[in-house]
């Protein structure tokens, strides 16, 4: 049988060659090259989404000539676990240690770039791949979860806080090194718009105005500091987009553009209080645009189906024609996006794609004994429901160690100051205060998720259904937390600063690079929600 297929393939190839045309049928026979551009901490802010205060021409081009997704999510809004999900096709709660931030990545979870490399693909990456954490193979040797690094080219960055990696230049090196006869896959892992930012760079270098920000989310104060912080973030997003633009131009120049599946996204929402590291809508909602004329039925479509990062591995293996079962990867839960790409309709396509599950285990250390803040949640078109399993813990990390689960920033420091002046301050409570065991938000009226309606009798039935649906799925997915084994996530050692809180409490003053000493609370706080 195999020989027959091979023969058939050769004949088809010969015929195509004879015809001398790269027609659609032949293109379909060859897997596309893959360019995955993943920004670091970029929320759903782009021209294609209607954002006026960030210019993203490259992303917009991908969307316009391809597909724009309005309901794309990562199940977990923190770098390492989000990327682990994207790379393995497994859910957060199916990833053992890799569900945590800063973990030791288990050797048994093979990633799809590793599979592509094994199958003869030319696989490379620049800057941030899977990180942060330690990923060694069973023999203790470091793994390349996202391919061979290309980081030699440097450029002078627009601000000292932006990376000097010449991402697009490194992509050129990668392409130059690509063998003619093999498909390639490149991971563009920008380091922007991750913290920190050059304060006021958005205004002073980006030429933006504070008034450009059309709306400050309801969970932050509408304040000059916050607006500057948002524009400084915008300036860094634009850096990511510029390099993406250069990469697209390079592909065009080489005649490779239309043979390349371009996926542009971000690992999760922006590095601001209550977004990155949380499980609200803005935390897990990510930008997503895909371009590939050879595989997309009708370009320029806007897709409202719910998709998440568990699907990426299945999609890549699908287009690479690799049987997942024979890939050596652990069983994956995601589904290929091929039907969405090959459909010719906009809006909702697959009625089963009507929700996503989200969650959180340990992210940054900073609670006693390295405890995490476990959450599971479900997002539907109308609602976001969260179950906080340990509501007696501080969601953003303990006050006395500076709420380490939220990156330090001018916005963070501002809100902490306001909270110190008045513990009933709404923004302090929303961003850093304790949470009840259940949260329910009506996304139609409250996309910022600031008005918790879990106790609203009128929504009791809705809440019950969401809870049941969520726990039913989590059980089917073998989530240890559904079977009383949730504490396993707290027990895995952290690869960075283990025992931070306890060491800090002993007066040892350990350093956390992402923390601002001003943010530690001098006095105890009454932890009421």
């Amino acid at each position, binding site marked *: 049988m195999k020989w027959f297929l091979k023969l058939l393939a050769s004949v088809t190839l010969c015929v195509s060659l004879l015809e001398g045309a790269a027609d659609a049928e032949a293109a379909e026979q060859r897997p596309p090259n893959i360019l995955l551009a993943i920004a670091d901490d970029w929320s759903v802010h782009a021209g294609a989404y209607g954002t006026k205060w960030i210019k993203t021409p490259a992303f917009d081009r991908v969307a316009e000539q391809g597909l724009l997704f309005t309901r794309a999510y990562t199940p977990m809004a923190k770098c390492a676990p989000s990327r682990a999900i994207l790379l393995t096709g497994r859910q957060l709660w199916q990833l053992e240690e890799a569900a945590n931030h800063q973990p030791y990545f288990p050797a048994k979870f093979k990633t799809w770039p590793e599979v592509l490399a094994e199958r003869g693909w030319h696989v490379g990456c620049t800057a941030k791949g899977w990180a942060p954490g330690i990923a060694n193979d069973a023999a203790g040797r470091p793994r390349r979860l996202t391919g061979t690094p290309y980081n030699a080219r440097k450029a002078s960055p627009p601000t000292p806080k932006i990376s000097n990696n010449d991402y697009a230049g490194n992509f050129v090196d990668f392409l130059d090194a690509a063998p003619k006869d093999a498909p390639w896959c490149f991971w563009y892992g920008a380091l922007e718009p991750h913290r920190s930012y050059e304060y006021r760079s958005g205004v002073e270098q980006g030429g933006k105005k504070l008034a450009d920000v059309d709306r400050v989310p309801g969970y932050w104060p509408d304040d000059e500091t916050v607006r500057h912080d948002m524009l400084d973030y915008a300036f860094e997003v634009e850096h990511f987009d510029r390099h993406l633009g250069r990469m697209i131009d390079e592909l065009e120049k080489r005649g490779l553009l239309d043979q390349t599946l371009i996926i542009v996204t971000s690992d999760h929402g922006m590095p601001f209080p209550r977004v990155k590291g949380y499980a609200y809508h803005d935390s897990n909602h990510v930008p997503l645009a895909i371009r590939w004329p050879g595989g997309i039925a009708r370009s320029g479509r806007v897709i409202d189906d719910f998709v998440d990062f568990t699907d990426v591995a299945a999609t890549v293996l699908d287009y690479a024609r690799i049987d997942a079962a024979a890939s050596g990867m652990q069983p994956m839960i995601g589904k290929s996006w091929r039907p969405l790409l090959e459909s010719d309709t906009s809006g909702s396509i697959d009625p089963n794609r009507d929700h996503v599950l989200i969650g959180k285990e340990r992210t940054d250390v900073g*609670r006693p004994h390295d405890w995490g803040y476990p959450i599971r949640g479900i997002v539907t078109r109308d609602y976001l429901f969260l179950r906080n*399993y340990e*509501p*007696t813990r501080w969601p953003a990390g303990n006050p006395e160690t500076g709420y380490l689960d939220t990156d330090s920033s001018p916005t963070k420091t501002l809100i902490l100051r306001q909270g110190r002046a008045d513990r009933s301050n709404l923004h302090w409570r929303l961003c850093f205060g304790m949470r009840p*065991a259940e949260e329910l938000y009506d996304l139609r009226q409250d996309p910022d998720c600031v008005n918790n309606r879990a106790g609203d009798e009128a929504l009791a039935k809705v809440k019950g259904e969401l809870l049941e649906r969520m726990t039913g799925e989590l059980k089917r997915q073998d989530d240890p937390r559904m079977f009383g084994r949730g504490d396993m996530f707290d027990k895995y050692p952290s690869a960075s600063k283990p025992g931070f809180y*306890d060491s800090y409490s002993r*007066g040892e003053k350990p350093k956390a690079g992402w923390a601002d000493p001003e943010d530690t609370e001098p006095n105890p706080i009454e932890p009421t929600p």
Partner: protein
Amino acid sequence: MTRIALLCWTAAIATVAAAGAAERSQPNILFIFSDDHTTQAVSCYGESRKLIQTPNIDRLANEGMKFTRCLVPNSICGPSRATVLTGKYSHLNGFYGNDPRRPFDGSQTTFPKLLQKAGYQTAIVGKWHLESDPTGFDYWHILPGQGIYYNPPMIRGGERVKHEGYVTDVITDLSIEWLKNRDRSKPFLLMSQHKAPHREWAPALRHLGWDNDRVYPEPETLFDDYGNGRGLAWRDQDMTLAKTFTDRDAKLVAPPSLTPEQRREWDAYYEPRNEKFRQANLSGQDLVRWRYQRYMHDYLGCIKAVDESVGRLLKYLDDEGLTENTVVVYSSDQGFFLGEHGWFDKRWILEESLTTPLLVRWPKVTRPGDATSKLVSVLDFAQTFLDMAGVPAPDDMQGRSLVPLLKGQTPADWRTGFYYHYYEFPQPHRVRPHYGIVTERYKLVHYYRPDLDEWELYDLHVDPRETKNFINDPAYAATVKELRSQLEELRRQCKAPPLDQVPPEAYGAAPARNIRQPVGQPRATTRN
């Protein structure tokens, strides 16, 4: 003017000299002692349910030393307290159970008396529960009996006084007030002893809802069937969430001592939840599960205030510059069951009730963050405090100073076995009198009266939850034999009387009636 200045100067020198002398030889001792605060509810002990964060108590572990196996010789309130004071087992200090008719004999030698004699200023504030008036204290301000949670009446040097507020806060306020007004020329011993988190576990009103309606993980043994060879004592106790837990325990009935205003706050938290409970009409395991959740909210809510109290006391020491020269000890009279085996309460030789927290901060002596799993006991406290103060301990005290352990040294002959004996029966929880030996790994226990004669063996290495009796397992025959002889030796060393010479009053206020007597067993007769 000159004379006044001179006077001040002289006084200042005297103060400095006194402080200097104290610093050299006699540290202050702050002893914070709660009631039924079990290690599962102290976060630095790291139990897997992660029930609560106790940052202030943990501070003592971080800045001092943690004892992971501090055992009590008789796991109930009064006897444990009598042991702390005297350094003796119940059978020598005479206080066997919580029997109001048999008050503690305050004429015996206690460590506060000896410290007082050695120049210490001594005080006890809070729970006493030994029925007789405290002796050996320059100042005492205690709860009568068990005390109550809200607006507790107290007794100050024999005079009844009323207090408003929550008992843990009141005790903390009074403790700090005493520290402020103390004679600063002397070192001090302050025993700040809480009622919390004793039954019926009523939290401060500010802590109602403190846990944001968390659903607590259940212990593995919540629905223990008392099988695996375990005997009558297990099956016939009366301390389960299923059968013993009252409406008052469940907060379905409010305590009577609340003011109307406090009652409104109480109702605002409990009433909507109670209403939901009543409508759900739970039974069987669902009811137990609900009770367990309510119990955890309340018990742990009490701990919140205790932890805050520790924080306030430590802050006072910091602010007054007393930290360096003050030994701070946090402990409790015994552990407690938090749903394990389906139980609340204590009394048993089992780990949950036998082990009590012990954290000691002694600046410049203990290494911050140090810990030991050596077998120590509240029996050792008296000799430890005397040793710290450089006062010789009487020969008849039965513990051993912990000072070497605190200095990071372990004496080669440190105890490897510990003698335990519980008496009170049948009231209030039908826990059969039992005694036994506890080692690092094993417990050999004899449940001996009034209607049974059963030996049990637990092996913590194999069965850390203590759900199996290995006594008849041939593989353990040699172990049992060895433990039996060690137990007899321990009883001899502890001067434990033969069982038939234990005074019948030891077993409690209410006599055992209508209990089938085991056939052919020699026993102490029940008079009355």
